């Protein structure tokens, strides 16, 4: 099943990008939120539902204090509201804030520009060392491949005898 953010989830996540991600990641807001959808797609359905409920609660929970939904909060207000969840009215608030922080941070540093910024370039490195393995160690690699398929019965001459 393909997962899509609900409008509420999407709006709340959009509003949280400047709160959770570093300022230099904010231009990648759409890509970060889209990457999170891919993460949500593979979590168990019960967790998906819990997250959905969490976003609605988070969104509406800002009303009594700010007279607007969380999705509309900006700057210091957005920061203070998220912080109030981190500190938590209940353990569930704390857990929700922690999970969203974790998942958004993950998606943030999955963005190529953010990886480049911190000097993490795994694709080029993988290409380089793979080439090295298949050239410098070609003979040993072939030997291991052959060993994997070579006959070597666990028990001598115990070919299937049972009818």
């Amino acid at each position: 099943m393909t997962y899509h953010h609900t409008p509420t989830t999407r709006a709340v996540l959009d509003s949280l990008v400047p709160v959770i991600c570093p300022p230099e990641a904010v231009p990648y807001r759409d890509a970060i939120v889209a990457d999170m959808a891919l993460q949500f797609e593979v979590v168990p359905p019960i967790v998906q539902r819990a997250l959905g409920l969490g976003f609605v609660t988070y969104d509406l929970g800002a009303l009594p204090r700010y007279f607007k939904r969380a999705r509309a909060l900006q700057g210091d207000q957005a920061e203070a509201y998220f912080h109030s969840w981190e500190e938590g009215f209940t353990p569930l608030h704390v857990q929700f804030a922690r999970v969203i922080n974790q998942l958004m941070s993950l998606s943030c540093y999955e963005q190529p520009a953010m990886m480049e910024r911190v000097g993490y370039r795994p694709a080029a490195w993988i290409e380089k060392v793979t080439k090295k393995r298949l050239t410098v160690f070609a003979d040993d690699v072939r030997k291991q491949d052959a060993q994997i398929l070579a006959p070597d019965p666990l028990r001598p001459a115990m070919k299937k005898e049972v009818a």
Partner: protein
Amino acid sequence: MATAALHEGGSRPSNVFTRHDLKGDTVLDCDVVIVGSGAGGAPVAAELAEAGYDVIVLEEGSYYQTRDFTANTSQMVRQLYRDGGASIAIGNPPIMFQEGRAVGGSTVINGGMSWRTPENILARWRDEAGLDDLTAHSLEPYFERVEKRIHVAPMDHDAIGRDNWLLKKGADAKGWETLGNLRNQAHCVGSNRCAFGCPTGAKQSALVSYIPRALHFGARVYADVSVQRITMHGKRATGVIGSVRTDDGAKHEIVVRAKLVVSSCGAIQTPALLARSGLTSRSGMLGQNLSLHPNVKVVALFDEDVSGWQGAHQAFQVREFADEGLGCFAAVNLPASIVAMSVPHRGKQLGQFMDQYNQMVVAGLLCEDTTTGHVKVINGRPQAFYNLAEHDAHNIQRGLVLLAELLFAAGAKRLLLPFHHAQELTSADEAHRVLSAPIPTKGWEVVTVHMMGTAKMGSDRTTAVTDGYGFMHDVDRLLISDASVFPSPCRVNPMETIMALATRSAGHIIDNARRYLG
């Protein structure tokens, strides 16, 4: 040749079937059906296929080849990990655990550490579970065979990254015992992507070792198949019923009829499969006795360039305190995105912290736990429950002090601890001071990849779920071959123990073919 195809990306072997091949309900017959294709299932499949038996392996995850393993971390996690890596054992603290879900099982996503079961653990299993046959001597031929098959070897010197050398430098400065790690690798070149599918083909996971061997000797592998239950005739297991969901959303049933059923789904899924099948153990221990090897990580910041992602994963293990319940310390470089999600920072602070990514050493410690949790089945799905014992929390806290000493001795300037609201440390003295105070367990960030013990072996059917070979007491022709059968935590990385026990079980089946396959 099949392995070349697996390594370099040829076509899918003809006896690997996926959701794309299964167009309707299917009934299959075979001698042995194995549920799970990882460290427990794949060796049994290869040994029995080579002995001439008709073997079918069912795997819930998909079939990938080495060429499919890329630098896209979150995509790899989604493809290769159950629940996207977000499985959680409920308790104090909640413990995140990871299970592989792909052909090759967790061997596709593990670090490849390959250690024999320590003799004192085997002694404990003999004493406490009556497993008198489990000695280092009796297991020697099985360990040897496994080590040959998956190419267990020390690391090539030039594949070891700076983070690991710094760990060793710190241990040497402290005078602590450090071992060069043994891993199932054939010329690992240090891509440091073990946990996301080895993209170079160097790690000899079941995907590129036992599974190709099983296929070569005629086994069939069905990927994307979720097994609901084991079928029974009286007390005898007769096969399994599962299903496959195709890309268009259609669900087809797969029935496999077999003379012998093997459950190799791991310590979380195996008890769930048995429970869904209505099987119980008179010992009352099915799903109980869950141990986890809780582990925690710290991030140390150095002034120098480390770039730990350019070098092998866990090239060394510090074993100085293994006899005190602290299994090992190791450098465990993580991709930038995983580091970012592992720290409590956010916003500008996260950015400033992550800008130092290439100066980081991520180091972890593994604790041999003294308590147990359990697995319950809720709506057909397993849920793990586990509370970290006070004693183990205390031991981890002590381990963190020692790890901090090591890292500062190696030249670390700052250290981030694995719990919320923890201050950054700037010296070993500060680590002693901060970590001498009790830290509430609920604040700990604990993870694990070693789940064990939920269908434990033992000679006494009133206290154990399976016999000394992993056959379930009170059920005929049902073998459990995974870490479920461990009577207690094995102290070291469990893969080689699982594989050796699986090989031993396969030999027992061949030796007693009339009993199990007649």
